């Protein structure tokens, strides 16, 4: 299939960027979206030009490295899918596809489609864990956890930290990401001990990093490759209020 691509090129965080047109005439419907970009890069190399930089690694939807805005939508048109799992059969021959980086002031552009998402790590560092020492754990079955509790925790813990939620949000809020970690841990008995300090520290860090506030448009859930529910944001807000009220 033939494709007309408009791809964001930007040398670095302090230089201006622009959309550049590329043409690919040998795309295959069975290709993944990233394999299509590999083919564009192969053309660029043959022309002696520098390649389009983008983050990617596992290419099976679990590492969370990849992510770009495809025709205005983070990770593109497929539901519950990361960019690497999107295949060209989702497009038509002759389509024009616009590809941009995840944009947010808390995700500075490194180059082209590569952005700096280290703010996410700092949110986790601020308290997104259970303070247990590695060898200090009690016998695993001494903590009974109902199927529902485990399943609720898993649904939140499935977050891959890609940042699509931020990119989709008109406020560039990291509420879905942050809440997924908050609720993953608070839904488990072993995570309840630090529930108050954790949520306050993580929300504070989220604000410090420059992410916007959540105004609950639910755009994040719509683009999340793991289909993480905005209910987690509601629960995080509840946990935050609970902590602030000293309940």
């Amino acid at each position, binding site marked *: 299939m033939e494709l007309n691509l408009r791809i964001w090129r930007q040398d670095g965080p302090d230089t201006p960027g622009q959309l550049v047109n590329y043409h690919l005439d040998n795309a295959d419907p069975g290709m993944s979206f990233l394999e299509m970009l590999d083919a564009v890069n192969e053309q660029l190399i043959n022309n002696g030009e*520098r390649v389009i930089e983008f983050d990617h690694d596992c*290419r099976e939807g679990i590492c969370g490295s990849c992510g770009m805005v495809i025709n205005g939508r983070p990770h593109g048109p497929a539901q519950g899918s990361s960019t690497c799992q999107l295949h060209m059969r989702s497009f038509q021959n002759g389509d024009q596809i616009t590809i941009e980086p995840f944009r947010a002031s808390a995700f500075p552009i490194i180059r082209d489609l590569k952005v700096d998402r280290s703010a996410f790590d700092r949110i986790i560092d601020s308290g997104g864990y259970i303070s247990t020492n590695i060898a200090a754990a009690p016998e695993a079955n001494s903590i009974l956890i109902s199927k529902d509790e485990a399943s609720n925790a898993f649904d939140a813990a499935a977050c891959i930290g890609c940042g699509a939620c931020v990119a989709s949000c008109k406020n560039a809020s990291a509420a879905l990401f942050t809440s997924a970690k908050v609720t993953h841990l608070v839904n*488990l008995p072993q995570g309840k001990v630090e529930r108050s300090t954790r949520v306050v520290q993580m929300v504070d860090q989220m604000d410090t990093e420059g992410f916007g506030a959540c105004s609950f448009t639910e755009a994040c859930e719509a683009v999340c490759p793991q289909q993480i529910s905005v209910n987690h944001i509601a629960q995080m807000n509840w946990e935050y209020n609970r902590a602030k009220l000293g309940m």
Partner: protein
Amino acid sequence: MTMLDAKIPNGPIEKKWSEYQATCALVNAANRKKMTVIVIGSGLAGGGAAAALGELGYHVKLFCFHDSTRRAHSVAAQGGVNAAKNYQNDGDNVYRMFYDAIKGGDYRSREANVYRMAELSVRLIDTCVAQGVPFAREYGGSLGNRSFGGVQVERTFYAQGQTGQQLLMGTNSAIARQVKAGRIERFSRHEMLDLVVKNGRAIGVIVRDAITGEIERHAAHAVVLGTGGYAKIYYLSTMAMGCNATAAWKAHKRGAFLANPSFVQVHPTSLPALGKHQSKLTLMSESLRNDGRIWVPAKSGDDRSPEKIPDSERDYYLERKYPAFGNLTPRDIAARAAKEQIDAGHGVGPMRNAVFLDFRDAIAQHGREIIQSRYGNLFGMYQKITGIDAYVTPMLIAPSPHFTMGGLWVDYELMTTIEGLYACGECNFADHGSNRLGANSLLQACVDGYFILPSTIGNFLSGRIKEPLYSTDDPEFDQAESKAREDIQKLLSIKGRQSVDYFHRTLGATLWDCCGISRSRESLNRGIEQIRDLREQFWSDVNITGGAYEPNSELEKATRVMDFLELGELMCIDALHREESCGAHFREEYQTKEGESLRNDEGFSYVSAWQHRAEGEPILHKEPLSFEAVNVMTRNYK
């Protein structure tokens, strides 16, 4: 050639580790603060080691090439992690688990290490649960289990089909806690380019900052590699695109022996390649074999759609050949059986390079809902990639390189042949012999990082308490940094006609053909020749655009492929020298009349550990394997 001493403690196998722990030297808490340990890699092994060392109070510098420590390839392991908890009351215990791994590895692993892995599995599950890993649960709230290939008990703990991700989030949270405590300094987007060795001892590393391109020097009292396996050398594999051997290979070139490099696990259930654009093969978890049945059309070339082929014209070849284990035979056997069917013309799918994995009977028996609850995300993943609904049509699956049992030679303490250099997890060789059992890789990575290394490293560092760090102005640092810069300049200056990917794909195809599921003297000799030619071509004809001091993913790929081009040859040399078939290493010349592996215990019951030489062939050293706790038998899964 020398015989290597693995420093295995004396005493009965079940006492060795506790004896070791009771007698090894320690570093006290006040002194740990003064010591720096570099950890390369943030997966379950490296990340686990970093977190554990941070907890102990060491100053840890943790490096990963990803943008975040949460993305290491441990994240992609699907099926589960084994532990001898015997929660199912089905006769499991530490010895049985140890025995299964020794037998599964076809008696080419080190007994004492394997026993320790099984022993520590019990505590590992406790640790993960305490960290908040949401394992599958029974209705009463206790932990659930399932079964994996090569065993007859249910000892696998799992979190849907994302167990690796969930364990890694546990590790990552332990890392985050130490970052906050100021004990781990985290360096994301930094890739190790060389090891710095002085007087036979590891004193630091050279890394490249992937954003600025700057080459940096870092010194430490000890260096720990947790850099994973090298199956990406085949290009088409289940590994992530960035998986590489550079850290391990550079350590090898600085004096660390590389053991059993030809032992590569080919996973029987990955998705087949569907075209020439393919960049990776996605794994479909082995857990699917609990409920899915593997078959091919009995008549070769039968291209009816699978639903139209009646049972009488299907060959459920694993159930037929291995009735005791059926679809749950170990990976090496299942992969080779699939290859046999495909080679005989029974392959299915557009490229006739696959077999069917069929859930028809399981859905009829348990209902779609149950199957969905067990494997929902895997079926979803399959549909995303292929566009096919596996609830209706059988999956197409094919063998794909997946794990490397070979790796840096380490002694019982996980120290390589370079003093002060340790290797944890997949980048070492010790625990899986010539074939790894499913759900033992997460286990090994975790116990190496969380439990073993933090104990054994103290035994070394206790003797170095008074020694200051070597200065990064040392001539050894100068030399290593200049070498890294020279390599980069050389790569960028070639400006040839072929991309890095071209060389990687060609190398991968050569290795798959010559040193893949089955190997022969002829194929291996051919492989060596072809790889040498390809390496020469690479250094005269590779084309890398962009510069050294900027983000440059082509340059990153090139520095990895340049090492793969050397490692590939050593893999062939190792496979050529081992004139027997064992586990994943199947030499066509050494098989029974029925086509099963023919092991040669008199000749080859040893670990081959290769020493690098700047000029000429590598030197073979041997670590003889002795088995005291098990009787060495012929594997039989019939």
